């Protein structure tokens, strides 16, 4: 029972580390998906005094993915009844050209400002409209959320690592008798500590399995995925191959590194 309690303590601590990392990854993935969603919707409008080819427009910034000309025919059609054909023809000649620029990624507010300046440097371009205000607010909120999750994850990882160290110290006391006897018969430090490493590895595997199960349940019920989809984010919160492997590597690295620390500190004390 006591041994089970010790296992559970380490498994919970490792699970907490893994969950905080996975939440950070999921938030990062959601933001990337949202950026992609914004990128598809987002465009910059350029007003030019003369015709510009797509090649000319694309050459103005590497951020520009493609461009399309906005037709003025609709405006002219509306004015048909109000103006004489001669004036209409004159207006047609003097009316500026409108272009919609699509970008290859969703820009940050700074990048939009830079792009605007760059485009306005061209003499043919009279005006550039970024329309980024609305998108900026949501995007900035998401970035803030990502930063908060990151700080939170680091804090959780630090605190739980200290808890794991303490737990392993307890294990060491529990197995001290066995380790001392082995030392009396000349067992090297790694062999004496093999039991600690075995426990650490087993608990790391169990913690990873629990994490996979937890995310399987979250995916299965789909509430969170549905909520994200409603705000235009289509994302897989947990990838059962990549994320499971990464989680296992993290759990093993954390538990083995902390066991090694305990063993080496104890060896120094001897």
């Amino acid at each position, binding site marked *: 029972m006591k041994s089970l309690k010790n296992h559970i303590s380490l498994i919970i601590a490792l699970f907490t580390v893994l969950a905080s990392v996975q939440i950070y990854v999921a938030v990062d993935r959601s933001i990337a998906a949202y950026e992609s969603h914004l990128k598809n919707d987002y465009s910059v409008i350029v007003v030019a005094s003369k015709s510009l080819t797509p090649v000319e427009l694309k050459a103005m910034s590497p951020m520009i993915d493609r461009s399309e000309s906005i037709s003025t025919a609709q405006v002219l059609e509306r004015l048909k009844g109000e103006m004489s054909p001669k004036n209409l023809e004159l207006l047609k000649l003097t009316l500026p050209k409108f272009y919609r620029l699509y970008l290859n990624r969703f820009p940050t507010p700074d990048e939009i400002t830079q792009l605007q300046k760059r485009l306005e440097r061209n003499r043919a371009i009279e005006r550039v409209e970024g329309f980024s205000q609305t998108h900026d607010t949501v995007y900035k909120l998401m970035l803030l959320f990502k930063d908060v999750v990151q700080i939170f994850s680091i804090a959780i990882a630090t605190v739980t690592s200290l808890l794991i160290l303490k737990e392993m110290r307890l294990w060491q006391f529990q197995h001290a*008798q*066995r380790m001392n*006897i*082995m*030392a*009396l*018969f*000349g*067992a090297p*430090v790694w062999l004496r500590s093999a039991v600690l490493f075995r426990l650490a590895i087993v608990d790391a595997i169990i913690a990873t399995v629990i994490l996979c199960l937890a995310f399987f349940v979250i995916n299965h019920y789909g509430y969170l995925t549905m909520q994200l989809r409603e705000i235009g984010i289509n994302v897989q919160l947990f990838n059962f191959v990549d994320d499971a492997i990464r989680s296992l590597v993290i759990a093993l690295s954390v538990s083995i590194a902390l066991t090694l620390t305990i063993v080496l500190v104890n060896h120094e004390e001897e």
Partner: protein
Amino acid sequence: MDNVIIAENLSLSYKENETIISKATFSIEAGNFVFITGASGSGKSTLLKSFYGAIGPRQGQLTVGGTKMNRISASKLNFLRRHIGIVFQDYKLIKEWTIEKNVMLPLIISGYTGNVSGSQVQKLLGHVKLTHQAGKYPQELSGGEQQRVAMARALAHNPILILADEPTGNLDDYSSSVIWNLLEGANTQLKTTVIVVTHHIPEGLTIAYKHYHIEFGTINEIA
């Protein structure tokens, strides 16, 4: 014959300003059977501990199996201990392990494979009359049986030196006789050096032995 243990002006103590063994000079030849006697607290167990590196010399020199024990490195100490068999008064068996695995411990440490160590362990358990107890755990055995397991463990890896600290201190006559027979056998048949710390030298021993007595921190050989 080579000396397994050489002590020159050896002083032992746990604290800076105390003396347990003072400036002792003696040597023990390979293949000897040696008794170290003395009153309680005379320092006989401390002297034995110095032979397996649990306590280092405070002053003087101590060499065990050709290895200088002064400021010995961990790896050298481990190597030396892999050639020593130790029997403790409190047995020091691993309670989470079966009797069979406890006897196997020195072989596991020395890196012997399962088949080799398995047959050696069965042979030794036969010698200590505990073959039928192989799968049990130490706490399921009596004190005498546990000490016989400890004795089998000390012999498992054919050590060059056996150190025994009051091996029959609390044992019944049967267990005591099994242990003395094994120690005698190891000494006469395998030429293993045996050093036994005890209050009383048992009667009826058939082998020649040396006897050192510790009193007031000095070691004297008894003729």
